[in-house]
């Protein structure tokens, strides 16, 4: 080997060793997660400070720095979305428009504003139970036009509004003041807006940040899906899926790009994985019912329109981790529990109807202990057993579900006998 070649080999070898060490050290001490911090002029700052948007920042950086920070921390900011891109009024928002320091704005943007860029997502959300149907549950038909009732499938077979247009019986029981601080907080996800849209995207996506990771975490769903009548978060936490999540949160890739998720990113499913996310070969959706066979929340569980097709979509999610036999077995087992819970509800309902026909109780709801027993038989215990069965929550199938239903039936029968004795 020529001396010059030897020199070249030596320099390349030495340079490579030094170079790799420098890069790894710079990762360790400079650019790694624990490295130095820097401040750069940002794309969003460059664009936001144009025109009217500059005024927004001038004030809000002082008055509400929190939301400005959230915005700058968002992907929206990184992609040059400006304040008025979301807050400027769109068609149909005349009633929502306010003049704010000589700028026409919508203080609280609705899904119609989001739809400027996220049309598909808004359309899917609007078709879901999270939108108009969620709001109908607390307010009834009040505030809905006939067209809206028809559009959002809120009419029964006779063309009359569901539940005779009445709000949920609990809304009336506790009164509007308590309901506004309870029922409406969660059901506000589908609240009717003055521009005719339904819903509030910020219930799941933190306002001004709109982090996708937040919507993928079960804790976000759990802010509403908890408690005695729809304890999905408790059921999830009890299930094998939730247990794995709790023990291995750090292994989940919550920030993975939409449409790319596989078991490599989510080794166990979160709520969003099964109900919404594009996962494996399944397309994503913001219609949370699009993969469900059953309506499990009503008095009697019933199969959805396109229920069988929806179930096939859900199976395709399950099959990323489970065998076909296992999935079929679980789903068949769950259907047996659903049937059993329905059977118990029907028994209770029959008992209540016979007492009503005999004139032993009145027509109004929740006037006697027996009616409370029946209400909880379907509204609490029935749902819990069903949700527990489909989501793998054993305790909710039995102790909070079927067991409680059986107990309630015995109590109802005893109450009925007492009533019959008295009359």
């Amino acid at each position, binding site marked *: 080997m020529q001396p010059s070649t030897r020199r070249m080999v030596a320099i390349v070898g030495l340079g490579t060793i030094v170079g790799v060490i420098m890069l790894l050290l710079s990762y360790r001490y400079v650019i790694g997660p624990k490295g130095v911090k820097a401040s750069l002029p940002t794309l969003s*700052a460059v664009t936001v400070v144009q025109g009217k948007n500059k005024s927004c920042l001038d004030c809000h950086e002082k008055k509400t720095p929190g939301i400005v920070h959230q915005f700058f921390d968002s992907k929206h900011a990184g992609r040059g979305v400006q304040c008025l891109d979301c807050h400027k009024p769109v068609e149909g928002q005349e009633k929502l428009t306010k003049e704010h320091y000589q700028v026409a704005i919508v203080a609280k943007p609705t899904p119609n504003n989001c739809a400027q860029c996220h049309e598909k997502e808004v359309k899917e959300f609007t078709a879901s139970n999270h939108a108009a149907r969620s709001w109908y549950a607390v307010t009834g038909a009040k505030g809905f036009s006939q067209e809206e009732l028809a559009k959002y499938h809120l009419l029964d077979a006779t063309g009359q509004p569901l539940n005779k247009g009445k709000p949920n019986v609990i809304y009336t029981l506790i009164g509007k003041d308590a309901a506004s601080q309870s029922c409406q907080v969660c059901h506000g996800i589908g609240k009717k807006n003055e521009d005719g849209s339904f819903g509030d995207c910020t219930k799941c996506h933190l306002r001004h940040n709109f982090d996708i990771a937040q919507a993928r975490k079960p804790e976000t769903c759990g802010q509403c899906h908890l408690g005695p009548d729809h304890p999905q978060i408790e059921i999830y936490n009890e299930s094998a899926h939730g247990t794995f999540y709790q023990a291995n949160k750090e292994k989940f890739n919550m920030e993975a790009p939409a449409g790319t998720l*596989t078991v490599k990113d989510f080794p166990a499913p979160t709520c969003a994985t099964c109900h919404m996310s594009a996962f494996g070969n399944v397309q994503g959706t913001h219609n949370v019912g699009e993969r469900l066979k059953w309506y499990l929340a009503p008095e009697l569980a019933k199969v959805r329109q396109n229920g069988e097709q929806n179930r096939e979509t859900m199976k395709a999610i399950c099959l990323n981790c489970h065998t076909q036999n296992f999935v079929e077995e679980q789903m068949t087992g769950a259907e047996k529990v659903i049937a059993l819970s329905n059977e118990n509800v029907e028994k209770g309902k029959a008992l209540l109807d016979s007492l009503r026909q005999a004139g032993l109780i009145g027509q109004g709801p929740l006037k006697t202990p027996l009616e409370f027993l029946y209400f909880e038989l379907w509204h609490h215990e029935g749902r819990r057993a069903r949700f527990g069965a489909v989501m793998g929550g054993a305790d909710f199938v039995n102790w909070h579900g079927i067991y409680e239903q059986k107990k309630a039936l015995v109590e109802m029968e005893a109450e009925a006998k007492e009533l019959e004795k008295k009359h």
Partner: protein
Amino acid sequence: MLKIKNLRTPMLIFSRKNLKTKLLLSIMALNFSLLGVDVAMAHSQNNFFRWEIIPLIYCPLAVLATLGRLFFLDKLWSKRIFKVSMWLGVAVGVIGTFFHLTGNASSHWEPLYKIVVDGSPVAAPIAFAGVSLFALVSEGTVGLERRSKLLTLVGYGFLGAVLAAFFDHARLNFEPVYTIIPLITGIMAIFSCLWLAKRSPDRGEEYFFLAVLALNLFAGLLGFVFHVLGDLAGTQGIVFARFLYRNPLLGPLLFCNLALLGGLSIIPEPVEPMLEWQKEILKKSKEELLPIR
């Protein structure tokens, strides 16, 4: 029996007038096309939001300008269009890098990790500037000067590729450890290119240089396979979105591309005819030296 020195004979075909230039321009047109495909895939994630359409408008223009120059090498108009287009490419690369950097940043102090690793790939847009400069040099000069400039640019190209791989693999915290392979082979290539750019190498240096390029070619292909396997992992079938937004398919092939460009850079240049005054000096020196011998 095949002798290594005989392998140099086919290379002599490139010494024909303009053949190397044409070959390099062809490769540059291909580079611009692939850059366009790569950027289209990446920016489709954002529905080509605002300025993200710029490189997609630029790429077809650059391809046309390069092909125009390739087929009309003796026309002045093709030269002018080509030069303007390539300098535009340099601007696109620099502005793109600025956009990626500032797009990843907030106005507040934050970890560099977020600015250069966790977001838009900051080392990617500069490829436009690199390819444009390489094309400019390919067309603009000949002889040893071109060879030297091309090797320098390939060296800086490898630097960009190493940084891109470094930032990309930093997301994985360099796990598994084989994700540092492109850093090693790439840095070897940087030093080799820069070394050769400054020298008139002997055959040993050239062979070592070619071996380093071959290593990078292999690393690029290996990386391509790893990226594909990574995109397929954890799925029951092919999820196309993963090829778009996860392990970039064309990323590792950048090392193959640069290895190819490095190899093409050292193709023998056409020998320039000696000028009269040079002949005089040579003649004189021979006459003066002869008696000493």
